């Protein structure tokens, strides 16, 4: 049965009338037209659909809308407008992290989540930070380098 669900999406109060069992991923992509989050596996394995729910990194393909009522959701469309988001996007472009690009929105979200919580990650911590995100193109090395670069720049620009 459809229900009115209110939540905060990228800083704005929004609502949607939907079945509480519908997936957050479908609602943000189809109802709100925010298509940065991708559907890769539909079972929370690949991380391509990653968003932040109350500041925690989650895979939106396995979050039912009922769990989103009254909560705070941030997608890449919101994150890319933040100072840290811009630094990460630039570092990904500068460091050659991007190939086919399908996993990249999720990777950027995971990087954002890591750097919000750890301003000075080691290479190993970067690897752990994206270990829930599958990439089939890059072998991860240039993504890791780009994450380290983003951290270095953010420390200089944002957290000095």
């Amino acid at each position, binding site marked *: 049965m459809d229900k009115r669900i209110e939540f905060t999406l990228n800083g704005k109060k929004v609502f949607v009338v939907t079945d509480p069992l519908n997936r957050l991923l479908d609602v943000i*992509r189809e109802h709100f037209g925010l*298509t*940065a*989050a*991708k559907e*890769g*596996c*539909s*079972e929370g*394995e*690949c991380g*391509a659909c990653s968003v932040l729910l109350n500041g925690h990194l989650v895979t939106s393909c396995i979050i039912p809308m009922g769990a989103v009522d009254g909560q705070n959701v941030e*997608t*890449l*469309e919101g994150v*890319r407008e933040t100072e840290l988001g811009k630094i*990460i*996007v630039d570092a*990904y*472009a*500068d*460091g*050659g*992290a*991007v*190939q*086919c*690009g*399908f*996993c*990249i*929105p999720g990777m*950027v979200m995971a990087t954002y989540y890591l750097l919000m919580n750890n301003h*000075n*990650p*080691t*290479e190993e911590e970067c*690897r*752990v930070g*994206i*270990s829930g*995100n*599958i*990439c*089939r*193109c*890059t*072998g*991860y*090395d*240039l*993504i*890791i*380098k780009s994450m*380290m*670069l983003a*951290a*270095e*720049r953010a*420390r200089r620009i944002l957290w000095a």
Partner: protein
Amino acid sequence: MSDKKNNFEYEEFVESFNPRDDETPLCGVETAIHRGDAYQKATGAQKYVADLKFPDMIYARMIRAQVVRGKIKKITVPALPKGYYFITEKDIPEGGKNCLNMIASDWKCFAAGEVRFKGETIGLLCGPNREQLFELEKQIKIEYIEEEAATTIEEGLACKGGAFVNDNNIHCQLKLEMGDNVDEIFKTAPHVFEDTIETGYQEHLYLETNGMIVTKENNKYILYGSLQCPFYVRKSTYTLLNIPIEDVVVRQISTGGAFGGKEHFPDILAGPLLVAEHKIGKPIKLIFQREEDIEYSVKRHPSKIVFKTATDDEGNILAMDSIVYYNVGGYLASSYVVLQRGCFHIMGCYKFPSARTRGYGVATNCYPSCAFRGFGAPQAIFAIETHMSHLAKHFGIEPLQYKKKYLIKQGDTTITNGKVVEEVQCPKMIEQLTEASDYYRKAKEYGYGSYKGIGIAFYNHGGAFTGNGESAIIKGRVRLTKNANGTVDIFCGQTEMGQGINTALRKIAAVTLGIPMSKVNFNAPDTSIVPDSGPTAASRSTMVPGYLIEKAAIEMKERWNSEDSFSVERQYQHPEGYPWDQATFQGYAYLGYGWGCAIVEVEVDKRTSEVHIKGVWSSHDVGNCIDKRIVHGQVNGGIAQGIGWASTELIQNINGKFKEKSMSDYIVPTSMDIPEQKVFFANSPYEWGPYGAKGMGELVFNGVGAAYIDALSRAINRDISKIPVPSEYVCDHVLHGTNSCLIEEKK
């Protein structure tokens, strides 16, 4: 904790690259620059097929055969609500043919009567509500007469259930010989060893599943798809509707990974969609869910390769014979060419006095196998490398020392009785990598059975289409247009699927013309606009279309100041003096090989049998790097995929049904599985490539699996003859395995 010194390196890593736009032409082709698609993709703004919507668009769901082999007895379709359709073979209009024209035209658009494998397309259920399609699907009843199926290479060869292709289940075959007659050598040789090497299925697992949208515009059928080869899709499907080929227009949409899995496979979506569009006339969207994409899509061919090798008492190889079996599945499609490439690469990077190979593409009741990065070469290279390691161990010779003796050189004869044209850089690679990895010390220290191991493999990949195929079959054409405002448009059919071809081709043009990158445009191809420059496959896009763009740009530069707007076209010509006979497979199979060497170091956990990769070193000859960092990214990705193929990527076809169907079942490498790779190059420029560049996209996959298995075999002192080897199989090898797989023929 990371220290400042470390971080400084990252900043330096980046600042040595990424010149300003206007500096690009001065930097040359090698300097790494920003990829044209990086910002779009990193901000999530890039649209993929699933992100597209059209007014009045409806959705489709593919309905597939659920038996492995049989006859369709009856299809019962429920009364469909208004606006819903079930499209089948019966909807193909008069004069249309129920087939897809891949390389062979045997794969049917819709199963008709006969079912050759589980998942063969029966029909397309279309309608406005996707949830409703799932409900209706449950109500479609298909009755079958089931038949006994053959699903492995052995069952296919034994014609289990009766042959369904020819009278022997052999889809295709070929034979190659060089040197003296091997049978005669076997009669007198001191030793003859048999060794059987097998490889399993591999799923592409591109992050973006297959998807396509069909619409109609101005009486033409428009297909928007995630695909590699727009002209392949057009050629494959227009005969379904019996319309002129130009009435099918294919537009590539940003493709979220492909690796060969979107070379011919998009035809499977395009065919039924075209027939549906003919009947319904509205935009129709078909996006595969991950489970259906894994279970019902093409994979890398499983292989079984049997070597018979004659040696003297010291282990010197006198002759090598091999029989190559590939599990082709229900339809031939592209597999004859895959088998050919496998056989052409069966000697790997080696030369033996005499050699013979016979290849067989075996028909089975499995989902057909098709292109996957390497296109038949990786199975052959894994087999020869592993066989060489087995021989080395048998004769007590360190594997690198053993392999080194046989490395092929410029001017040496190949198995197709052509010559190697270029200087082979393997000796230089050995120097680079043994030093960087401390190979000699570790090989000696770890030995066999210390649970630590280091392994090495050599590999190559013939660039572009075999022999004179580029000029005789593909006839690729590209066009450059100078616009009055000083910008240049590239027109060709190459597709960006992550490999960086958009940036590479624009860079070749910009550097040659001496203009900034931003002045060179290259849009995703549309078959109604661009000339057919051939498929984005066979590691040919930089090597061949890139070369044509360089040549066109040279002419454009000469005319630049005297003409405002004009176009230059170029078509590929095969260089003189390198004959090839496609009927007999004799001559120069490839004018430019990419070459590679990989070293892998592992440590095996004695209690859990988990394999920890401690280091990966690789060196490649790619002719020239059109963009160092793009090439670096290709190396990283190819190596990770190659290690996955040999280790964790187990997908089992059990009685015609794939057991692993999701990303939690099918395990590809994560960021935790492989440490930072050390990447080297030893380039030998290719005369007919742009700035010396040759193919490299597949090369970087081809050999690392063998290096990994060499390392693992040494660590646990077990011969390993079959991949993949996930941890539970490692445990099995330790407990029950053998430390020699070679079977010596009794004289």
